[in-house]
């Protein structure tokens, strides 16, 4: 199966080439600087000292470590296979939109291996599963790709916390994931990205939802030189609910980019997208959020919100919330705001003796906390609040 995927994606990438700014999803983010990265040396003979506890699945340069797999506490509650062992093409297929993405295919065409994680029906997963993506780069200009599939069976309630750790030279990390959520499942997916190696991150996460699924995606992103994320969700059966809360912090010339496509393909589903960016210096961000309500997806309730706080005159936010509605009995809304800190609020705080810099910091934190308080996990919220404080303190 792996070779078949690679062959198909190689052909697609050859056909599409690196994306240009003429494409809607790449209008405000250049891919030129990504061309120099090469995948030839990734994942060879890399060993790390610490690959987490028994709840951690540790990936080094896109490949899972045997050590973490062996001690993984839930390994008997799951079927863990190489993607190569799968025979079912449907399981490996992703969205038709990712199919149009050249760099998605670039990633797939060069993966060394990938894993299929299936959670057994009836098993308990009380403690969140940590996914540690460790990127160790002894070689300059390395491109590292990973591809994993997670399948939740009826009744599963799973929390996954994904963290990236970068070491060494800056690299181009291409992360591709598919999540299949069967009926009556709960998936809490938290993603924390904090980098100081000037790496580039490109993520493609595709979620396929059955009936009565509850999906929470919480993400906080700081210190990324270039971070572009594609999230696509298919709500294929009635009764599902999706909440996405994303907080991005950027300064210097960092670039943050969220592309979310919510496909309401069935009746009585709910989705919320809540993305906030805080930008300083010359940082830029992009929000491309789209909700598509298919013909017949009646009683859809969907909302998109993108708020951008600019702390510098030179920071730039591009916001593009979109609705595409083909059903006639739905509730859909979207909103976008971009601006500086509110002068009246600063005056109010200062009029109580709080110095200007502290007043500014209080307001930045408040803006961010409105997202963080929506995070499902207390641990992730606390960790994110700490990261936020460190970022504000510079």
């Amino acid at each position, binding site marked *: 199966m792996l070779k078949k995927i690679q062959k198909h994606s190689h052909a697609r990438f050859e056909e599409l080439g690196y994306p240009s700014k003429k494409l809607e999803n790449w209008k405000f983010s250049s891919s030129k600087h990504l061309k120099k990265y090469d995948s030839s040396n990734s994942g060879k003979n890399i060993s790390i000292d610490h690959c987490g506890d028994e709840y951690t699945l540790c990936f080094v340069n896109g490949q899972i470590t045997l050590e973490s797999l062996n001690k993984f506490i839930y390994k008997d509650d799951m079927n863990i296979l190489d993607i190569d062992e799968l025979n079912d093409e449907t399981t490996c297929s992703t969205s038709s939109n990712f199919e149009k993405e050249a760099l998605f295919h670039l990633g797939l065409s060069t993966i060394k291996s990938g894993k299929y994680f299936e959670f057994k029906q009836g098993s308990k997963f009380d403690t969140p599963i940590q996914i540690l993506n460790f990127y160790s780069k002894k070689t300059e200009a390395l491109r590292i790709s990973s591809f994993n599939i997670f399948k939740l069976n009826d009744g599963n309630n799973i929390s996954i916390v994904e963290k990236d750790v970068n070491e060494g030279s800056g690299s181009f990390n291409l992360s591709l994931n598919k999540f299949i959520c069967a009926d009556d499942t709960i998936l809490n997916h938290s993603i924390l990205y904090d980098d100081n190696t000037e790496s580039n991150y490109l993520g493609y996460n595709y979620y396929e939802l059955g009936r009565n699924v509850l999906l929470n995606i919480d993400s906080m992103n700081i210190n990324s030189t270039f971070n572009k994320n594609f999230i696509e969700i298919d709500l294929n059966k009635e009764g599902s609910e999706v909440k996405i809360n994303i907080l991005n912090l950027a300064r210097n010339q960092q670039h943050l980019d969220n592309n979310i496509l919510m496909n309401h393909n069935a009746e009585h589903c709910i989705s919320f997208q809540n993305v906030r960016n805080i930008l300083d210096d010359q940082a830029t961000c992009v929000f491309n959020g789209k909700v598509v309500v298919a013909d017949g997806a009646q009683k859809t309730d969907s909302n998109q919100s993108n708020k951008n706080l600019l702390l510098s005159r030179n920071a730039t936010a591009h916001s593009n919330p979109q609705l595409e509605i083909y059903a006639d009995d739905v509730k859909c809304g979207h909103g976008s705001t971009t601006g500086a800190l509110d002068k009246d609020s600063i005056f*109010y705080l200062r*009029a109580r*003796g709080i110095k200007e810099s502290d007043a500014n910091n209080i307001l930045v934190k*408040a803006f961010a*906390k409105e997202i963080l308080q929506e995070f499902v996990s207390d641990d992730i919220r606390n960790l994110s609040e700490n990261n936020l404080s460190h970022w504000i303190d510079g």
Partner: protein
Amino acid sequence: MIKIENLKASIEDKEILKGIDLEIPKGEIHVIMGRNGSGKSTLANVIAGNETYEVDSGLIAMNGNDITEMSIENRALQGLFLCFQYPVAIPGVSMAYFLRAALNAKNKHDGKEEMDAVKFLATAKKILSDLGLDDSFLKRSINDGFSGGEKKKSEILQLLMLNPQLAILDETDSGLDVDALRTVAKGVNEFKNDNNSVLIITHYQRLLEYIEPDVVHIMIDGKIVKSGDMKLVHEVEKNGYSWLMK
């Protein structure tokens, strides 16, 4: 306490204050009344240091120190407190966090230790109770989703917690029902002592039924045109402001 001399101020090149002279000694309550647009709220904001306004000339001195060019926060730390006419909502910042930050800034400035959480809560709860507010008020975001009465009570809570030397009440009585008005007035009377001062800016005499002023000033077109006692309030209530414009 505060002395203002020939204060002129403008916003976007439009002169609003056209030469204000005002002195409020320690231990006194002064009232400024006037029509809409006469410059009353501008005066309150200029005294508090709102940078939206430009001070063109004149002097503001507090306890003998010139504060005309002083930063907003330093004026507050000197003991100036503005009860806002329209308190802003700040979602995401709890009242407790805000009050503690303000108190700690004041204590630090005054060379005192930070107030510990137990003492802070005990003090705040007592005032909340007096204002008819629940303890959970402290957990709510600043003025976010507050009713008109809650916003004004929140200002009085801050006034009593921070215990400044000069409180400027900018139309604190507007939009309040009789019960809320009484509660706010009670808070102001509790605050008032021989060592501090109050400047009340208002349109109506109804707040003055509960707070007795020492001096009443009438402001018209950016100037104080007449000063007197409570009789002046009654005259304005009866005859309006037109007779003062001659």
